[in-house]
Every structure is written in C-alpha cells, then in structure tokens.
C-alpha cells in the first residue's frame, strides 16, 4: 500500500490469507513431521559460501539501480507517461493498473496466465494421478470425527458473501483494485473453505474434478482466442479494436473477456492444486 500498488497488495493479501498457508500445512501433512536423516549431509560451509556469493552478487546488482522512487528512473520515462496521460482517452477506465495489465501489456498478462496454467499442470502431473479414492474416504473420516458445528454454520454464512465478493472483484477491476487474478484466488478460497468443513466427497460432488480441469484450460483458451479473433480480423494479436466501432467500448469488451479468462483459469488452477495436495495426504503419514 505504501508503494501505491493497491492491486498487487490485494493479490498478495488474497493469496497469503487464502491459499499459501493451507498449501504449506498440506505439504507438512504429506511429508511427515520429521526430516529423514541422510548419511551424506552436504557440508554447511559449502552452502554458506554459495549463499554468500549469490547474496553479494545480488547486492552488487542493486547498486546499478536508480534510487527508489527516482523521477529520472528508466521505468518512469519510457512508457509510463503515455500510460498515465493517455490511458483515460485510449481505454477509458478509471483503474490505470487494469488498463496497463489487460490492454497495453496484454501479452505479458497472457504469459502470466500461461505460467499459472503450467504450474497447475506441473502439480497435477507430480501429484494428481494417485489412488485418491481411498484417501478421500480417509480424509473425510478425519473431518467428520470432530463435529465442527460452529465452524460449519459460520462457514455457511460466510461462503456466499465470499463468492459474491469474488464476482464483485472480478467485474469491478475496471473501476478499482481488482481483476481476474484476485477474484480467482478469492473464489478458490471459498471453495477450499467449503472442502475443509464439509469433506472431500461432498466437495467433489459440488466441484467436478474433470470439469475444473477443462475450465482451467478453457480460461487460457478464451484469453488466447481473443487475440486470435483480432488476428483473423486483420489487426494485431490482442488488438481489441475489432470488437466495436467505438475504440473505448472495444477496449472495455476486450478487457472484460480476458479478465474473465484470467479469473476462470486462476480459480480452477488454485482449486486443482489444493485438491491434488489434499488427496495426497495418506493415512500412515498422519497417524
């Protein structure tokens, strides 16, 4: 917030509060409580020297950077003035971050979405194809053995507003901090909350695994197809001006569609990662 990056702060808050602690706990549950002792421990001195060299190289690297917030830094001079002065006329939405992210820099954002999608595929290929049916039964037994009545009731009250809020964030990205990334994470957090309190079997009935796998790729596909449509209409890739005659309306349509793609992919990948982690918690490792 102090660096005026509300959107980034928002994303960090959503991911940090909703997803990452859970994934860490799930990892702990998977790997067990104690480190396996190995006969050939690498020497700490070598590790220290490696860290020292890397750290000093990084510090030396920062010496060349301009001072924080310097007005003559390259980042402030190159394209930033155009974004600041012209995005109001060219894109016509109040949140400049969204117009940079989704229109000027749509290529980069496409790359980010593909990275998230790839991460999801990576987790799935490492963890996703185990004998998960037995584990689901076992995890549900753990969840059911304490009757979380109070937690369940509070979750029932809270989950609909969370889902609603994620939709608000999704479609409000044009006007304030928000957008597909944050909305996807918040949506996934609501589903994860539901899974934790009501069990994996029930959650599987609500969220079909195959369906979210398909949706995760559909989000990226939607984003990419937007570019393809503009390419086929004779403009550059991801040039939104093909969608309407009025340039601002065209930009709005383009941004809405690609944010939707981002949101769908992020939400589904987060859910996929969570499910494949939780399905890998095995009986002998918990007891």
């Amino acid at each position, binding site marked *: 917030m102090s660096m005026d990056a509300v959107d980034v702060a928002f994303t960090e808050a959503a991911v940090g509060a909703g997803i990452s602690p859970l994934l860490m706990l799930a990892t702990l549950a998977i790997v067990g409580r104690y480190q396996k002792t190995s006969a050939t421990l690498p020497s700490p001195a070598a590790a220290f020297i490696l860290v020292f060299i890397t750290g000093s190289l990084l510090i030396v690297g920062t010496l060349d950077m301009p001072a924080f917030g310097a007005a003559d830094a390259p980042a402030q001079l190159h394209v930033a003035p155009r974004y600041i002065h012209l995005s109001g006329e060219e894109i016509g939405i109040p949140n400049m971050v969204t117009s940079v992210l989704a229109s000027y820099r749509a290529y980069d954002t496409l790359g980010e979405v593909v990275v998230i999608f790839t991460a999801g595929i990576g987790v799935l290929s490492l963890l996703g194809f185990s004998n998960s049916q037995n584990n689901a039964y076992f995890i549900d037994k753990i969840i059911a053995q*304490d009757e*979380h009545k*109070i*937690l369940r009731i*509070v979750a029932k*009250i*809270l989950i609909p507003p969370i889902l609603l809020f994620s939709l608000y964030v999704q479609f409000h990205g044009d006007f304030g901090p928000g957008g597909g990334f944050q909305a996807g994470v918040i949506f996934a957090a609501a589903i994860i909350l539901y899974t934790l309190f009501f069990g994996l079997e029930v959650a599987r009935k609500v969220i079909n695994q195959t369906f979210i796998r398909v949706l995760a790729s559909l989000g990226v596909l939607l984003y990419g197809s937007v570019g393809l449509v503009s390419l086929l209409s004779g403009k550059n890739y991801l040039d939104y001006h093909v969608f309407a005659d009025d340039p601002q309306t065209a930009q709005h349509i383009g941004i809405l569609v690609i944010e939707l793609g981002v949101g769908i992919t992020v939400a589904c990948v987060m859910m996929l990662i969570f499910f494949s982690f939780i399905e890998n918690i095995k009986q002998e490792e918990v007891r």
Partner: protein
Amino acid sequence: MSLVVDILSAICLLTGSFLILSGVIGVIRFPDFYTRIHAAGITETLAASLILIGLMLIAGWGLVLFKLILILLFILFTSPTASHALGKAAWKSGLKPHGLVNKHDED
C-alpha cells in the same frame, strides 16, 4: 452535537487502544494457551469493534460508513470462530489447561 460525537468517538478509540495494549500484555504474561487465546480474543473482537465504532462515529454518512459496518460484521463473525477453532483444536489434541495439570499432579 458534533462535539459530543467527537468525544464519544475518542472514548471508543481510546478504550479500544487500551484493550489492545492489555491484550498484548495478556498474550505475553498469561500462563498457558487457553488464557492466552482469551486475551487475544478480547483484542480481536472487543478492541477491534470499539475502534471500528469509534471510526464509524466520525466517518459520517456514506460509503465509508457502510464499509466499516461490513468489516465490523465480518470481524464479529470470524474472530470468535477462529478463537473457538483454536481452542477446540488444542483441546482435541490433548492440551490441558494450566490449573488442571497441577491438580492432577497433586492427586
């Protein structure tokens, strides 16, 4: 009228801050887990609500007031639930309150 509101808001804010301070001291000084979540629970429910109410009084009618009310509602839902979950998890995994252990040892 506005002076009364200001004074009320100041009282709420000061009481809230005092409760946060006492909560922090409680978390550090109390003997075991259960008494500590009691102290932390006061911080996150009563103190937070008092501060929010104090802010609401000076916010005036508008979007800010509405958002503050929403935050208050969410805090009132989630904080006690979180304390409850912590306490329950500790009890389930066999942590006995401070006094109980001593009594048991004397028997």
